């Protein structure tokens, strides 16, 4: 049964690691389907994580932390929108700027406020989103296979994790079944048509970008006050880019993006287990290979070697009325 314990651990870890990726990938997806490139996922998530940790530490409430994270994510999105929707600046440059500003600012502020080299104080359990225990865990746990699966994998995750998984069908519904979603997809493909129909391109894109910022807020809050007990410098560690890659790997569609997030999360969660595993005689499987796999897969996919990922047609192009 040792392998079963490993599988359980792996499944649980995959879900935990994937959660911020899912939030971020959905954020990027909504933004990019409206035609605005979102390289700034990393920065928004980092800023949100910082805000969540600071506010949770000060007020002692995880919910306040979440609210602060969402607020900060949305504010940075507004900045992104101001630069590239209102003023038609370059979307990639704006995203890069946000990432760099946040990576410095969080440490400067954290260091000035708490004097811990950029870290925030350790949070207590009641200041965080701890695991939610499902009903009936005591009665079911003795069942073979299903019992441990229910107790160790399905139950006991953070509330934010469940929100993340529910978010995916919600985003799919929003995109494909709602009027807002139809317009959103249209504005990412052909903004001129949307404009001709009398709908404001800018306002639509603003809403999409801010929605993305809110979701980044959730991702950051999860990192700082659910998965960890505080903020550390550069704690996102490239997850925003992985989420971006997952979204592209999922071809800008919610469900495939979820699968990509789970795959990348699985690779991340499984990498430590593979440390020292021998393959082919005496050669060790390099852990770095597993870590690099998400990026390599995304490059291969983008190059069109496994299927074809076609971005929204108007992506990256600011809309100029009457041209």
């Amino acid at each position: 049964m040792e392998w079963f314990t490993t599988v359980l651990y792996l499944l649980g870890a995959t879900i935990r690691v994937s959660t911020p990726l899912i939030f971020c990938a959905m954020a990027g997806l909504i933004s990019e389907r409206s035609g605005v490139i979102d390289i700034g996922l990393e920065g928004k998530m980092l800023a949100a994580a910082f805000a969540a940790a600071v506010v949770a530490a000060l007020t002692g409430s995880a919910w306040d932390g979440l609210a602060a994270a969402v607020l900060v994510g949305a504010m940075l999105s507004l900045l992104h929108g101001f630069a590239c929707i209102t003023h038609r600046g370059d979307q990639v440059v704006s995203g890069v700027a946000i990432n760099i500003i946040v990576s410095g600012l969080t440490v400067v502020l954290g260091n000035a406020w708490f004097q811990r080299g950029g870290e925030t104080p350790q949070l207590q359990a009641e200041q965080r989103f701890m695991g939610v225990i499902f009903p009936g865990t005591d009665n079911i746990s003795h069942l073979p296979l299903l019992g441990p699966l229910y107790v160790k994998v399905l139950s006991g995750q953070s509330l934010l994790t469940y929100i993340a998984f529910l978010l995916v069908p919600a985003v799919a519904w929003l995109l494909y079944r709602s009027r807002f979603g139809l317009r959103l997809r249209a504005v990412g493909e052909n903004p001129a048509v949307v404009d001709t129909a009398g709908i404001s391109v800018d306002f639509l894109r603003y809403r999409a970008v801010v929605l993305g910022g809110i979701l980044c807020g959730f991702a950051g809050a999860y990192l700082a006050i659910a998965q960890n007990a505080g903020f550390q410098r550069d704690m996102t560690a490239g997850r925003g880019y992985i989420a971006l890659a997952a979204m592209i790997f999922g071809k800008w569609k919610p469900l495939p993006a979820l699968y990509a997030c789970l795959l990348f999360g699985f690779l991340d969660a499984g990498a430590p287990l593979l440390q020292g595993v021998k393959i082919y005689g005496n050669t060790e499987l390099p852990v770095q290979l597993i870590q690099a796999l998400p990026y390599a897969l995304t490059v291969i996919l983008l190059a069109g070697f496994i299927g074809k990922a076609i971005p929204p047609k108007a992506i990256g192009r600011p809309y100029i009325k009457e041209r």
Partner: protein
Amino acid sequence: MNATPAPMPRWLEIFGLPLVNLLMAMIVSGLIVLAIGENPFAAIGAMAAGAFGDLYGIGYTLYYATNFIFTGLAVAIAFHAGLFNIGGEGQAYIGGLGAGLMALLFDHSLTMWPMLALGLVASAVFGAAWAFVPAYLQAKRGSHIVITTIMFNFLAAALMVYLLVNVFRVPGSMEVVSRDFEASAGVPYVHALLTAIGIEMPQTPLNLAFLWALICCGLVWVYLWRSRGGYELRTAGLAPKAAQYAGISPNRVTIEAMLISGALAGFLGFNEIMGNHRQIVLDFVAGAGFTGIAVALMGRNHPFGIILASVLFGALFQGGSEVAFEIPTITRDMIVVMQGLVILFSGALAYVNRPLLEKLWKLYQARKNAKAAAVVAPVSPAAAPDAPVALAEETATLAATPAAPEPEALETTPMPKPAPVEEVLEVVEAEIVTMGPGAEPPPAAPRRKRGPKKSKRKPGEV
């Protein structure tokens, strides 16, 4: 693009605008410093003293500047081709691998100069190779270069960790570094050279790679503005359709620009590995690839501007360490914030400050004119005709009379003899489209700001 020709003079455009952007970044940084309860002016003072106060500070400033010149040039040359090379970080990392590999292989057998030349070439080749894959994929398979270069940054990081842990690490050592190079594989330090001719200079990592960086600036300038390849590159970046009509292959330009860009970024690895560390280490690029973006934007993609911006950022990094030493609340990360703000103001918000400055200039001009008009009898201003036909008629007649009083109009139609209106228009149009040798070359790069936008163009799309 859609930007109307600037009504403001060139000096204001070239020097004023970056200064305004820098000033805004400094004001916001100053507010942040105020917000954390420190005196921004004291910080600036400490920074300036730390960066330029003595030879030690200057040495470090120029050492940082060397890195930023290389990455700044790398970003700029890609910008000129309408590409956004966000992968300078990875290309520099792999460039350092190339230099370090050569040093480890040959430092026992080669003397200094051949060794250094080999390292220099290897860093360029490795950096260019790391840029080649994204460039090829963009040109031939249509994948987005921004995304692929980001992915290649992470791939480079993973590869370097693997190589250092499993290949280069000295057996039995806990440190994840390669062995030290022999003296032959070290670029001569500037302080050593100065001491040899009798000038005392404290030990700094500044080495001769700085000279090579300056030479690279010259070479890039010659390439961009004095060579056929550079002309094609700029044309493809400014007007992809015109370039294609003129027979310039956009795919070739993409690959060529990225190869040069990657090679330039690779030189950073030469400066760090053979100039400073003299062994292969982890994370020696330390964000300089991203600083290159700020440097290129601030230096307006011109080699001379890049030198100025690099020295500025070098001073910020060196001065930042001194500030962190004197005022512990302000860590070096403040410089990272400033760097991001510079990218924000001179890159993303480029269309906010520019019109603002234009408006101010117009206001200033109007007031000056009003004053002048009050003194001298007012001269009736030339009426600006609205209809294009009227404009063409006027320019055609102006071209016919050599002693025309309007120099501007003469410049727009350099026709030697009078011609019917339609013909004038046609000829001018044809010249613009073909970009023939007689036509006006594309405007100098500094005027361009939105290079990356072009990279969304799919190859082959007309």
